[in-house]
């Protein structure tokens, strides 16, 4: 009887230490999880700071100054042309072709056709 009791006690002790070990493992993992979450939170914070910094560096006022330094200038309305106003390849080929125009004197002068495009400068001023 007492031998069985002793064995049971040892078994109990073994199980208890196992449970304790498991508990410690869970606690360790929980701590690790918490540390990872904290690191994620910190990184998210750092990303937010970096995004704010990027927005600060890419503010239009600064970009305009940098663009000017690089010799770039903003587009004007007169540089904009609608797609349908650009001639086709055939029209371009025709415009590039040099035709000899006979003069009354018998001589001839080379001429080229000018494609019809809207003169944008006409508008406004």
């Amino acid at each position: 009887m007492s031998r069985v009791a002793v064995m049971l006690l040892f078994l109990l002790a073994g199980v208890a230490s196992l449970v304790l070990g498991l508990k410690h493992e869970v606690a360790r993992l929980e701590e690790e999880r918490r540390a990872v979450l904290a690191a994620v939170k910190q990184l998210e914070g750092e990303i937010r700071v970096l995004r704010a910094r990027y927005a600060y560096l890419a503010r239009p006022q600064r970009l305009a100054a940098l663009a000017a330094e690089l010799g770039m200038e903003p587009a004007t309305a007169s540089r904009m042309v609608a797609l349908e106003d650009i001639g086709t390849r055939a029209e371009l080929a025709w415009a590039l072709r040099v035709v000899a125009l006979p003069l009354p004197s018998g001589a001839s002068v080379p001429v080229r056709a000018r494609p019809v495009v809207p003169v944008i400068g006409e508008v406004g001023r």
Partner: protein
Amino acid sequence: MRPGAAEGDELRRLRARLRLLSVVFLLAFASVGMRLVDLERRYGGEERAAGSGLEEQRGPTGAWRRDLRDRNGRLVATSVPGLALAVDPSRLPDRRQAARALARVLSGVEEAELRKRFRAGKRFAWVKRRLSPAEQRAVQELGLPGLLFLPAARRVYPQRSLLAHLLGGVDVDGRGLAGVEFALDRTLTDPRSEEALRLAVDVRVQQLLREELLAAYRRFRAKGACGLVLDVRSGELLALASLPDFDPNRFAEATPEQRRNRCTGSVYELGSLFKVITAAAALGSGRVDLADRFDATQPLRIGRNRIDDDHAKRRWLSVPEILAFSSNIGIVQMSFAAGAEVQRRYLERLGLRDPLRVELAAREQPLWPREWKDIVLATVAFGHGIAVTPLHFARAVAALVGDGRLRRATLVKGGGGVLRDLELPPQLIRDLRFLLWLTVERGTGQRARVPGYLVGGKTGTADKPLPGGRGYRSGEVVSSFVGLFPIEDPRYLVLVLLDEPQGTEATFGFRYGGWTAAPAVGRVIARAGPLLGVPPSTPRARRALLARLQVYPVVNGRTGRREEGFAALRPGG
């Protein structure tokens, strides 16, 4: 059995039981010991770090707010993590010495103020709400007990003063105090949504508007300035700037004058800008026609009051000429022809009596005339005796010259909506576009012309009223210009207003809207148009407007001889 043997057995059993009991006790103590080690490992560290655990009572400081982005996704406001410093004064060994040490390492913190906060018996006192990393290190090196480093969200505005009045600012607790931050405080602090809120503003357009506005504000040494760019088709505000402005990152340091939003938080008598509305009412009433002419040879007398023109022609003027040359005499007669009831109805239908509904803290109510006597009707016709915010007016003109629908002005992308359909005849809208184009092409707004775009607009120069409606200040004016482009089918409205500008040598001392505000609007249109992808106006659109000019010639002279008018039509004339 011998008695000695029985005793020996009993003794052995007792010893075995004692050993068992010792093992049980040993195990029990071992488990208690291990539990203690466990507890120490799990909570001991945190207890040390947390001090008295007061942060759990106070919670984090500075509310976490949603990011704000412009219409193209550029970040304009964000919250970044930071630290705040508090202390449990009861744990300080020497409060006076601690106050001195902390004040030494922290900027903007007074020793006397800290001593006051560290009164005996208190368990919590703020030291500084925004701690820089360097300050955090310096404080830690002091090695004082009872210090609490608390997480604190900090609102950051990377574009600095660019969007000052539009964004507003927040207090140390992260509560919105002005601008969008105040008006949309609940939406921005809603914990259920973390997504950034898209505003209608375009930072590129905002930048160029503010740049041109600032240049005009400085050049004409104005007391203040307002500028805005409104999408005529949606009511969205692409840019809104008021000067002087401030850095929203330092909202607390801004003066009341800097915080004043002149576009929505101040009402102005806008002067001749109102002639657009009077002309719309007169033409819309059917009692005035574009071909009608009015006598502007003499100043008008209404009771004891005399109404004269700034750019007097001293002859009969056609309706297009009245607008183009901004004739007070002519517009008053047009207004009288339409009648007070029509004029009032138009003003009301255009929302010029309603409170402004826009996502900003600063929203001023219009000042409406108490009674509509003849002199009131006359002055309202050219924008005196009635005061509205520039945004009220911009919204109204956008409705008149756009598609005839009054829209809610909004700072949130997709936040606009039709308030009411004015049910204007299409011909009236076309006539108004023609009149505004004419004003820029031949009239007082010529300095707003832009190569590539057909621009329509109206100049305004108004005397500033004395407080309490006791007349007007001499020598102080509000100059403005409202421009729309492309006028053949308006997409955007640009308004610039200068409060008390001073004339310069280049303007020959003139402070008229046509000299001060119109060039700024022209430059904004020239720069913003290509950026917003507005195609240049076609020669056909220009020809259509010029053809109407043949029907309603505008003569820029005093004699009124018709030849002069046709001379003006010739190319280069």
